[in-house]
């Protein structure tokens, strides 16, 4: 019994560490985070080393994912991609990644734009906002659930919860691409 109580106390200590919220990135860190290395075809690559030194915060931190979700609606992503189902632009929920599911590819798509209509958000968003949004979009089309999830909607949510790995549920083999003029197929 005494051992059990001791164990319980130790487990409860774990609750003392709260997830950290970084409200604003240090400008030098933001500058470095902007320097991703992309493959010549614009698909895949490596993020700067500081990204790993920080512990991949844009994939594992729930606050960043929540901010990404807010940015998704603030910057009008839903005008083309709807609630992840796609429309004028490709869907995220179907699990098809035209430029690969890596964070750097998604980051580059948002920052620099892509052919056939995806605009560049370089001047409209800060570097950490683009990373946050990229992390959220990766979650939308994830095949396996992440350890962190963005907060739930106050209103109706038109797609499965982000922490249920939507693409694993909704993966669609085709052969009907949402938009045939999507650019180079991988």
């Amino acid at each position, binding site marked *: 019994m005494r051992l059990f109580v001791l164990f319980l106390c130790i487990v409860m200590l774990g609750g003392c560490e709260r997830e950290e919220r970084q*409200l*604003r990135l240090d400008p030098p860190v933001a500058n470095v985070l902007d320097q991703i290395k992309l493959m010549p075809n614009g698909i895949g690559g490596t993020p700067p080393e500081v990204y790993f030194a920080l512990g991949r915060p844009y994939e594992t931190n729930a606050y960043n994912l929540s901010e990404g979700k*807010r*940015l998704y609606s*603030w*910057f*009008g992503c839903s005008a083309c991609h709807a609630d992840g189902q796609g429309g004028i632009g490709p869907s995220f929920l179907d699990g098809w990644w035209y430029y690969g599911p890596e964070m750097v590819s998604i980051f580059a798509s948002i920052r620099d734009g892509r052919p056939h209509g995806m605009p560049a958000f370089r*001047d*409209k*968003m*800060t570097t950490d*906002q683009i990373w946050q949004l990229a992390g959220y979009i990766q979650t939308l089309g994830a095949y396996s659930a992440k350890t962190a999830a963005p907060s739930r909607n*106050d*209103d109706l949510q038109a797609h499965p919860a982000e922490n249920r790995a939507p693409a694993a549920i909704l993966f669609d083999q085709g052969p009907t691409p949402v938009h045939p003029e999507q650019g180079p197929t991988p």
Partner: protein
Amino acid sequence: MTLLQRLAPLMMLPLCSCNGWQSALDPHGESAISLKALILLIVTVCSVVWMLVMIALILALRRSHPPRPRPLQRDPRTARRMGATVIAAVAATVAVISGLTVASFFTTRALAVAGRDDLTIKVSGLQWWWNVEYFGATPDQNFTTANEIHIPVGRTVRFQLEGDDVIHSFWVPSLAGKQDLIPGRPNELSVRAERAGVYRGQCAEFCGLQHAHMAFFVIAENESDFDKWANAQRRPAAQPTDADAVAGQQAFLSKPCAACHAIRGTKATGTSGPDLTHVGSRKYIGAGLFETTRGSLAAWIADPQTLKPGNNMPLVPLSQQDLLSISAYLASLK
């Protein structure tokens, strides 16, 4: 210093809330005055009842009780007296409670009554600010503002209240009672200010992270000042004249600002953020967060998420020059 002297400042602390621009005990509106009377009535009656009960209790405890050899056998005279006491106590309780209920009913019923010809203002609660729409005689006289409500003194004003995201509550303690703003269910509240002044209001229903920073101001002024203000608000925004503000207008319209904010008279027609047509004329920005100055406007634009974490305005990357000119432009929108 005796203990009493030390405690005196502490004991006087609650008195601070008895007046000021946000106090139900310092009423300046018709309904707030009747609510205060109701509060005083209920507190007085309940205090008297409490005192009487306590006195009776103390007397009963202090009375000497002679030993009773056969406690189950009751003297009929005592039994009659006990019965009469219980009946009297029950009757007094029913009378007091129903009296207070009737007083409360008549006081609160009067709060919701407003005539059709009264000035109508629609207030929508959003996380975490207030959208205010004024309705004129014709639709072209309608205008929109935010977080600051002007009303004429001595005239009944009808507020139409509705929440746009979650439930909020509209509360100006010095003028009226609370009324909830519920999404999809419009509520009404009639307010009549009896004295001119600036009254602070506050969201009174927990609505999220920045609930505490969801304030607004009601400015009661005489009829001619109110008309002057309303006419100024109806006009589209002034075109900037000095070079800084002209550059600011350019930057405002080309950056994402215009996607969420409206400035009447320009191409900015966004509706998800507060209307900024006359933002320079309002006393506060950020729903009571800072006084409106060019400096506070610039600070807010530079980093809204640090000043009010969780609010719906993203940090927009701006050059130093753009930030300076946009703040000059917004401060010039009187």
